[in-house]
């Protein structure tokens, strides 16, 4: 016979709740916290402790405002508790309340000047505020007091890089790696720093060292692949991407890169997440990059549009508008207001800054065409369909959203080497699809669109070579 009654005392129960929250085991923490509340003695200390734990739990569950309120109540009960202040500083940082976070972190330091964690936290918060010199001072002190804490060194490196001292940042990360050679995040941080410096040989060296020491995670292998690829070492990059995929199999970006290397069966189109990942990280330098590549697509679209009789007046849809380069060249000739859609928030921000679009939407192209029933006079798709394999479905969707007489201008890439005879398309090593011209025509016909023109052009320059493609104009009859 087993009769069970609760025998735990509030202190052990509170520690257990804390352990469970730290371990991410919300399912165990939540009922124990309820039990602790029922057990609570009613003292200020007890209430504040329960408040702090509740706040942690709520924050873990993503309920940040409620967590903030719980912490406010707890701090009102124990205003000089440094741990509660640190906790609120972290929470405020998560809520983008940088000023509040600095205030709490500074209070935590004042309440306990020996609390190294509080000093480091203050440093981290100061980075967010852009106060890099102060951040460096706090973090340098934290590192000197607890040299083994690699997370402090990582934060210090970030502060140094933000302050423009990449050499110091590199040195800090290398020292951290020497102290904790098995910590993959440090290796990744160093590689990212070197990527931002565009020092690809150093990235490769750091990546190889990480691999050799068994400290390369998926991100490390991915960055190694990126560096190898940037230096034209494609087959080695492919191997590195394959290793990255083993460690991050759910990452669509890496999967797409591996598919492009031919090691996996290719999907019908590049995943939306891939595009978002690529372009979100790339937005700042995108235009510069395209210009440096001799990017001609927007200009070719404009020329093609002007070479034909005008379309019926009406709104224009720019699919995959990116940073707004197509909008830029159509601003003075468009038959109506231009709406842009893209999956990348950063890209859309850049488009918005150009003030050329009447509307911008963060949306996936096909879902947008499915859900938005508006008809358009002109639909533009610059460098978009190279992320689609077969074009039948997407062109059918486009056809449904064109007014009679409306047109669609888009481009695809060609490659005589990679598209096998009889194959409609093939995923190239650059992770873009190459299309056979016959497939473009067939897909257009299938969608009920007439080909007004199809012209072979050089789209941009890569490695001194012109990348061949087609500029296509279709019309709804």
């Amino acid at each position, binding site marked *: *016979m*087993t*009769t*069970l*009654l*609760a*025998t*735990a005392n509030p202190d*052990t*129960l509170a520690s*257990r709740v804390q352990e*469970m929250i730290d371990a991410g*085991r*919300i*399912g*165990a923490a939540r*009922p*124990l916290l*309820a*039990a602790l*509340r*029922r*057990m609570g003695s009613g003292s200020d200390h007890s209430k504040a402790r329960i408040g702090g734990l509740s706040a942690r739990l709520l924050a873990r569950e993503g309920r940040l405002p409620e967590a903030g309120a719980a912490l406010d109540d707890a701090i009102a009960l124990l205003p000089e508790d440094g741990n509660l202040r640190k906790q609120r500083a972290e929470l405020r940082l998560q809520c983008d309340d940088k000023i509040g976070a600095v205030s709490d972190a500074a209070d935590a330091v004042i309440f306990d000047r020996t609390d190294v964690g509080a000093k480091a936290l203050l440093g981290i918060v100061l980075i967010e505020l852009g106060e890099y010199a102060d951040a460096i001072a706090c973090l340098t002190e934290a590192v000197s007091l607890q040299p083994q804490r690699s997370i402090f060194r990582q934060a210090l490196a970030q502060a140094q890089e933000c302050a423009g001292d990449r050499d110091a940042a590199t040195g800090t990360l290398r020292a951290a790696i020497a102290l904790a050679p098995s910590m993959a995040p440090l290796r990744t941080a160093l590689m990212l720093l070197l990527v931002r410096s565009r020092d690809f040989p150093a990235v490769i060296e750091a990546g190889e060292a990480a*691999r*050799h020491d*068994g400290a*390369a995670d998926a991100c490390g*292998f991915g960055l190694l692949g990126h560096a190898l690829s940037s230096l034209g070492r494609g087959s080695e990059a492919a191997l590195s991407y394959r*290793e*990255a995929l*083993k*460690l*991050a*199999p*759910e990452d669509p970006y890496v*999967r797409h890169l591996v598919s492009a290397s*031919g*090691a*996996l*069966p290719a*999907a019908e189109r590049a995943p939306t997440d891939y595009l978002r990942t690529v372009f979100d990280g790339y937005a700042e330098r995108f235009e510069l990059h395209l210009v440096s590549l001799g990017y001609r697509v927007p200009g070719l679209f404009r020329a093609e549009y002007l070479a034909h009789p005008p379309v019926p007046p009406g709104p224009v849809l720019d699919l995959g508008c990116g940073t707004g380069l197509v909008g830029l060249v159509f601003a003075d000739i468009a038959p109506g207001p231009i709406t842009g859609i893209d999956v990348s928030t950063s890209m859309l921000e850049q488009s918005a800054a150009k003030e050329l679009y009447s509307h911008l939407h963060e949306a996936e192209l096909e879902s947008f065409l499915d859900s938005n029933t508006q008809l358009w006079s002109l639909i533009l798709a610059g460098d978009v369909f190279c992320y689609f394999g077969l074009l039948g479905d997407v062109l059918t969707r486009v056809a449904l959203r064109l007014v009679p007489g409306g047109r669609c201008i888009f481009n695809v890439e060609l490659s005589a080497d990679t598209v096998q005879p009889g194959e409609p398309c093939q995923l190239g090593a650059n992770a873009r699809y190459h299309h056979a011209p016959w497939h473009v025509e067939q897909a257009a016909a299938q969608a009920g669109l007439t080909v007004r023109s199809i012209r072979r052009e050089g789209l941009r320059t890569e490695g001194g070579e012109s990348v061949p493609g087609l500029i296509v104009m279709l019309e709804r009859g």
Partner: protein
Amino acid sequence: MSVEAALGHLHSGDTATALRMLDAMSPCADGTIEAARGTVLLVAGRGEDAVQAFRAALAAGDNRPATLLNLALAQQSAGDMLAASTLMRRMAAAMPSWDEPRLRLAEALRASGDKAGAERAYQQVLELSPARIEALIGVGILLMQRGDGAAAQLPLLRACSEMVQQATSQPQLRAEAWDALGLALMQTSDFAAAEGAFMRARQMAPARLEFALHAADAARANGNVAASLAAAEMALDDDPLNPVLHVLRGMLLEHAGCRSDAVDALEAAVALTPDAPGPNAVLGGMLARSMRLREAERALRAALANDPGNPRCCNDLAAVLMRMHRPAEACELLTDLISRIPAPAPVLCNLANATASRGLQAEAVALAREAIAMAPHDMLPWRTLSGVLPYASETTITDLVDALRGCAAQLQRGTTPASVIDPRPHRRLRVGLLSGSLRCHPVGWLTIAAFEALDPATFELIAFALNAGTDPITRRFRSRMDGWHDIDALNDTIIAERIAAEKIDILIDLGGYGDNGRMTVCARRPAPVQIKWVGAQYHSSFIPEIDWMLTDRWQTPPALAHLYSERLLVLPDGYICYSPPPDAPDFAPLPALTNGYVTFGCFNNLAKITPVVIETWCRILRSVPIARMLLKTQQFSHPETRERVHAAFASHGVTQDRIMLQGPSQHRAFLGEYNKVDLVLDPFPYSGGLTTCEALWMGVPTITLPGEFFAARHSVSHLSNAGLADWVAADLESYVAQAIARASDLPRLAALRAGLRAHVAASPLCDAPRFGRNLGAALRQAWIAALQVSDPATIEERAA
């Protein structure tokens, strides 16, 4: 101070105060105080002291029958069953109209395991007092234990109704009655009524753990888990400090398929009652089922600390230790258990497995055969024998085939076997994977790259997975799968129904008769085409419902094909595709070049290292006098195991300084140890599998001696597939000769090692795209064969 006041403390549960008060009283002439002391001591579980107290009371002149009966109870408590039952019988004879001595006798007999005697005594009580509730419950429980749930329900129902009529105020007794009735109703599959009975029991005794566990079982059987869970959660809102409700919620969550949440709920129960063994025992069992072994060990040890020797906990802990590759500790626990209680067959099976893992193969086979003799119609002993036989040198192919046939014969078959629904030969097929090992496990390392490379346009993959965690291989499986079913908490019938409901065309079993294997599901034929692949693939399954065995020409050459019940689906290269780990260390140059001596190695499981293998290795080591050998396996963490293996080598003239025995390491460090090895000697008859592939990846080739059954030929397949067929020995003499010869040609070994990783990477062993195409063709072949038409074009026409 009075005797009544002291007994008042006893009734409120404070035995210490009661005893202190009685001890402070002066002895009285009629023995009343001594009798009261005896009662307190009896309740406190101090049987022997109670006997002394009652004897003193009787000697002082207390001649009340109750005191005499209490003496009998104290004797029973002190373990003197003979004296107790004799006294009870004497009292029953002396006072034929008093039912109490008979009832106590019945209870004592039941407690001592004399069920027939107990039942007779209960019936005598009921003849005297037909409404005696304890007797009604006792008879009901005994009938239930005999498996006669229907007959048990009558006295139990009567007990419940009598308690209402008598308005008894003993809630524990009433709860016992309702609980027993619930169990009897479960036996007759009257699950809804059982659930109701358990609910009554829980209302009367909300702190009783067993009642909650029974209630959870009934809810599951009654298909009422969701509603019961909602009710438990509402109850917890009102009473969050009740650990039993947390346990109930945990069990219901597990039945609902949410094992991780279930574990968390049980953790809450444990945190609330840290010293109670029950919640820890339940938690330990659940963690073991979840393969969270370290946590399971901790919980079970915590349970045992508060309930030492609990048989269930000992057996569960032994099973956990086995899975943690600590068989010596498991053996110690099980041997101790068997010395204390009559061991049921499952305990013997556990012991057999643990014994094999210690490298005592013949002893393991004997234990498994003993278990079969005890329970010849249970599958577990047959499965155990099938599992341990491949390790033993003495095993003949006939022994193994007989054991596997015996195992297959015990499997329950399905009533509605699946058949082909859509007979188009070239359509996209739905392929199911059934396994408890879709993770960092040999099954994972040897199959994941193949599934990743299988064309998604022609094959949909749906996993039916047990114990799937979040390790990188599981995540790779999850990423490739088009559908995923966690089937941990489901029984075989439901799993088979789910596979059938998913309209799986081809089911691939990746578990076999191993731990967490589900051949029991395959035997129900949930898919029209069923294939055995990696995962306890010792040999043929001999299950008629398994149509094909995925193999290659080295695993199953034509001369051995007759040893299989399945048709052989022979792949053009090897039968597996190895996916090397991304964190594998770099390989080092041949260590012999710097050491000045050759180091042979074997990193296989100790279960594979038989006395004959050790004797053979010693022949080699005696012929290469300065050579050493590095053996590395989990079991060598145990000092006595190391001593025993050293002694075995020493008995063949190889001294301890030449044999290095290493315990477990993390996987990367484990691979790194190959940098100390020049060449591997494969064990036999059970050869290395994944171990051989890993050694190759680290630049170390293996000399192998193949046998007849499937598990005796893994290394032949992997070596041949990697282009090292010349490392396969034809017989024992050639195995020895080849080892000696290769150890003497260091330049050749060094050259081979330098290029081996690149060579293996480029070979079919690791060529995933090539394997994916071949696997696709093989699956298509099996599918088309199932359509029973030789010309696919004809089928296409017909289907169109």
